[in-house]
């Protein structure tokens, strides 16, 4: 036990303290070591609260373990946890992440009364007929005619958009914005997209070309990565 490896390392950086937990020991050993270390470097009562980044390396923590860490670091001692950083995430979490950021390609006609609902971006090869509805949490790309309802960003993502080869939709919905077709008879438009215009605070339909500067992070994956 004398030549015991350092399980806990604390380093000061510009943004605050970083607390490295060795990822090859057991969680209980690490907690034991942490208890000793933290009491030694605990700030005095009159000193300000210090924020700590917990770096876990290749260790996965359950929520209960995170709570345990929070208790030791921030409640008993006068630190506050800024964030947990880990190189690994849970398989389910990763799959959900992948699902949210994937483009789902679907080849069919969405007919009247049918609803096509996907997570992530939707690439529909086929038409959405009047009375049909497509819903996605990300963007919607339709290689075909959109006559029915399209709802992009159904989880509330305002940066999503709806693009179609031909569109004469009865309604476009993006997040919680809704726009409907005018009451007068109008012609459809070719190669256009619907997106939220922040200035007018409503859904507008514009040429596909505007997407290149209005929505730079077109891929759901990049978008997700940037949002963290």
């Amino acid at each position: 036990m004398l030549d015991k490896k350092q399980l806990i390392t604390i380093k000061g950086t510009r943004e605050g303290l970083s607390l490295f937990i060795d990822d090859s020991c057991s969680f209980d050993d690490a907690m034991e070591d942490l208890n000793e270390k933290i009491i030694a470097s605990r700030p005095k009562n009159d000193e300000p609260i210090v924020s700590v980044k917990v770096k876990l390396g290749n260790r996965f923590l359950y929520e209960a373990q995170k709570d345990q860490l929070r208790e030791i670091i921030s409640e008993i001692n006068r630190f506050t946890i800024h964030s947990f950083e880990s190189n690994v995430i849970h398989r389910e979490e990763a799959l959900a992440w992948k699902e949210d950021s994937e483009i789902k390609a679907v080849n069919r006609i969405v007919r009247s009364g049918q609803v096509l609902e996907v997570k992530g971006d939707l690439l529909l090869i086929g038409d959405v007929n009047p009375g049909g509805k497509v819903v996605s949490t990300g963007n919607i790309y339709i290689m075909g005619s959109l006559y029915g309802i399209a709802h992009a960003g159904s989880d509330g993502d305002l940066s999503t958009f709806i693009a179609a080869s031909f569109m004469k939709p009865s309604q476009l919905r993006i997040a919680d914005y809704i726009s409907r077709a005018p009451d007068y008879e109008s012609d459809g438009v070719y190669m256009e997209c619907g997106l939220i215009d922040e200035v007018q605070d409503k859904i507008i339909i514009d040429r596909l070309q505007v997407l290149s500067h209005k929505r730079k992070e077109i891929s759901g994956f990049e978008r997700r990565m940037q949002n963290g």
Partner: protein
Amino acid sequence: MGEAIVITSGKGGVGKTTTSANIGTALALMEKKVCLIDTDIGLRNLDVIMGLENRIIYDIVDVIQERCKLKQALIKDKRFDHLSLLPAAQTSDKSAVTTEGMKKIISELKQEYDYIIIDCPAGIEQGFQNAVAGADKAIVVTTPEKSSVRDADRIIGLLEKEDMESPKLVINRIRNHMMKNGDMIEIDDIVQILSIDLVGIVIDDDEVIKASNTGEPVAFRPNSKASIAYRNIARRILGENVPLQSLEDKKGMIQKMKQFLGMRA
């Protein structure tokens, strides 16, 4: 082994029963053994259009509830020996028929007949499910109206879930002058939206109503436009390659003649 074709539309009043009666008659005219089944329980019409109303003794509910044999309930047509009708019940309601019962009847009829034409009730409830249950193919009837095309689209979506080949489309009640003025949806637009194969177009012809009222389907009349259209549909069902435009071309010819003679087209 015969083939069961269900005639359906979703919306009411587009001409399902008329189409069933005429396709059946046209197939019978081509020497095929045909059985018509009316599945519109409680609102039967097919027997009236075929002029066989007063011959009904047993009906489809009697067969399903085993009050009679299938053979006893079949009515032979007064014009052909090889055309029969299985009438719907007028007094029971739709729950009296089950999908299993329908399948059993149809598989029994398939041994005997070349074509079984099933007239479907309007709507998408139990009656529709029953009519579709035993069918191998489907023909969707629509008219060039928005509401009827919308319902046809819904029905096609439901039929795609069934175990049968892609349905075929009949566009009924076309008024040529309205279509020319752009007051009706174009045939091409309907086919594009529904994206299924077109098996025939039928002009809105006064003869159809006249014929229905006399209990003689219009397909018996040699020269009416609607009659030719129905017979063309029957030929296409038999696999013949009849040009779809034949009806319009004919009309076009007449109009050209009229124009030539200085009459208003």
